[in-house]
């Protein structure tokens, strides 16, 4: 049977496979190959080497680690808040849940840059927050520690990625029926046990996608750290942009990018496996 079905399903999938190949696979392969080449006199020359990767690990391991840990932090915060918010959308009765979701989705209308600048306006020395607090007499001088550091970056990235994370979690929560929850309660489960045994295991995929999406977005971002981060919070995205930009070293930039991808993939693998085990443990009788 499978032998007969395969050509047909391939045929049906070919538009999306084609789009995937052109927009995703081809560029990735191109940059992957590029990451093993070198630049001499501003020209990429075909001279395969692993020296780019060696340099990445020697010069950029600090930013790599801090970038990935910042990405994990944001992804964890966003997944938890996203789960709480999506649960509210799913379990608050009537049309209220739908409205909650709509409100979260409306915030997607604001562009990324607009949001980052908004945070600058809010958190800046003469920003809304500081002037407001001074007006209220709560502080004497503006707090300068609000902006140009990791806190501001985490805050802005959490704000931006949250609605995107809510969607997959909400989607998987929607698939959970009310009856098994009622049945668990009937069998003596407390709210916490229902959350742990019934709801979280069934929306594990949604939680993981939300986490992965946020992690990958943050790990590759070059704009939020540039606008809101301090000098101490250099993220790899900024360096990658530099390599492709005024340093004119695309191979080096590609090597950095693939190191970030590899690091993110390892983190997701660990979390996927660990989370899966945790979930399975949860429903052992």
């Amino acid at each position: 049977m499978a032998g007969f079905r395969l050509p047909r399903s391939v045929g049906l999938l070919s538009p999306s496979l084609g789009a995937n190949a052109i927009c995703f696979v081809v560029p990735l392969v191109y940059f992957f190959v590029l990451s093993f080449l070198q630049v001499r006199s501003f020209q990429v020359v075909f001279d395969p080497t692993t020296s780019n990767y060696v340099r990445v690990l020697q010069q950029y391991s600090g930013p790599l680690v801090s970038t990935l840990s910042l990405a994990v932090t944001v992804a964890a915060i966003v997944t938890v808040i996203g789960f709480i918010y999506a649960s509210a959308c799913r379990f608050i009765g009537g049309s209220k849940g739908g409205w909650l979701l709509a409100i979260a989705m409306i915030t997607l209308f604001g562009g990324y840059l607009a949001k980052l600048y908004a945070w600058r306006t809010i958190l800046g020395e003469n920003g809304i927050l500081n002037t407001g607090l001074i007006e209220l007499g709560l502080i004497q001088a503006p707090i300068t520690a609000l902006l140009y550091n990791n806190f501001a970056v985490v805050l802005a990235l959490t704000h931006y990625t949250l609605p995107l994370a809510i969607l997959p979690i909400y989607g998987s929560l929607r698939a959970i029926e009310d009856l098994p929850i009622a049945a668990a309660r009937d069998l003596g489960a407390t709210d916490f046990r229902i959350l742990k045994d019934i709801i979280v295991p069934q929306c594990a995929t949604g939680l993981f996608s939300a986490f992965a999406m946020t992690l990958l977005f943050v790990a590759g971002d070059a704009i939020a750290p540039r606008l809101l981060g301090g000098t101490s919070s250099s993220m790899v995205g900024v360096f990658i942009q530099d390599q492709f930009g005024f340093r004119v070293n695309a191979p080096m930039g590609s090597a950095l990018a693939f190191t970030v991808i590899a690091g993110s993939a390892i983190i997701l693998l660990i979390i996927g496996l660990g989370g899966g085990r945790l979930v399975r443990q949860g429903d052992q009788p």
Partner: protein
Amino acid sequence: MNMSITPLKIQSFPAPDRRCGKGTGERPIVSMRGVRKAFGGYRAVDNINLEIFPGDFVAILGPSGCGKTTLLRMIGGFLQPDEGAIEIDGVDVTKQGPAQRPTNTVFQGYGLFPHMSVRQNIGYGLKIAGRPKSEIDQIVDLNLGLVRMTEFAGRNIRELSGGQQQRVALARALAMRPKVLLLDESLAALDLKLRQQMQSELRAIHQEIGGTFVFVTHDQGEAFSLANKVAVMNKGRIEQFASPSEIYHRPATSFVATFVGEANVFKCRRDNGVIALTEDAVFQHSGPSGDVTVMVRPENIKLLKDGSPRASEISLKAKVADKSFQGSFTKLSFIDDGGREIDVNLGNDADLARIQIGEVVTLFWPANSMIVFDE
């Protein structure tokens, strides 16, 4: 739930298996007093007083929207009554949720945990209760056997048919050995053959392990074949709570009479202790003068071949309007002079074959087979 379980012995319910607990002076296992529940002005359940005794197999029977499921959910703790009190085994549980009550429900949609295996589903309640793993395994095995699903223990829920899921849901509730097992139209989703099979298995399980079962159904055949007591509900009230045969032969209200089984209903008057169905069909029946409803079951009516009916019998002339073979009997529809339809169920015999549509015959039935309700 707090009773001790001896897993390998099947008779682990605390209550003795008795067919009917009425009138023994024993304490009811479920007692509802003045229970009311309204949904936005609509009275779903209206002043229910009900006592269920240990070992009873009770059916709550009624048309859709009569409040039967609401009543069951209030016993299970999924709904709180607006008024009144519910006691289970002598404890007031009115304010308790389903987790605290010694009841378990088999839901109409089963409500199985799709991410767990059959075994994990059945063991879940015991795991919550903190039972040791070896004990859980024993109880799960016992209940898998009870619903004949042993070979499916490791299966995923999604791989099971509707009937198999039904059995798992039943085993999951039974594994808790609830003081009262509640079944919410649990068999309604199954096809006829499977439903009949599950009915006989439910009956067998109840006989095997005892305990108190309460189930909701709109199917009177199911109610009669399973239950030893039936509560017939209409518009949020219990119209009658009695044994199936009492409900069938001595319905308390005209609703029960018409809802349960087939019935011919005559709307007429009683004047000075005399009721006249037609000009000829007159009989004495003491009671106040006024409108009455007279009911007679189709199987109690016979055809008069010759002679005249006895004094204790009622007779009237009617025309055969329709005749349909039903297998074990034949249903004849008559129309009398007043345009009333009368249904008669007759055993298949040679005489029946000669009856032609359009023919006028004399019908008769014993006066004491009629039931009269004052309106």
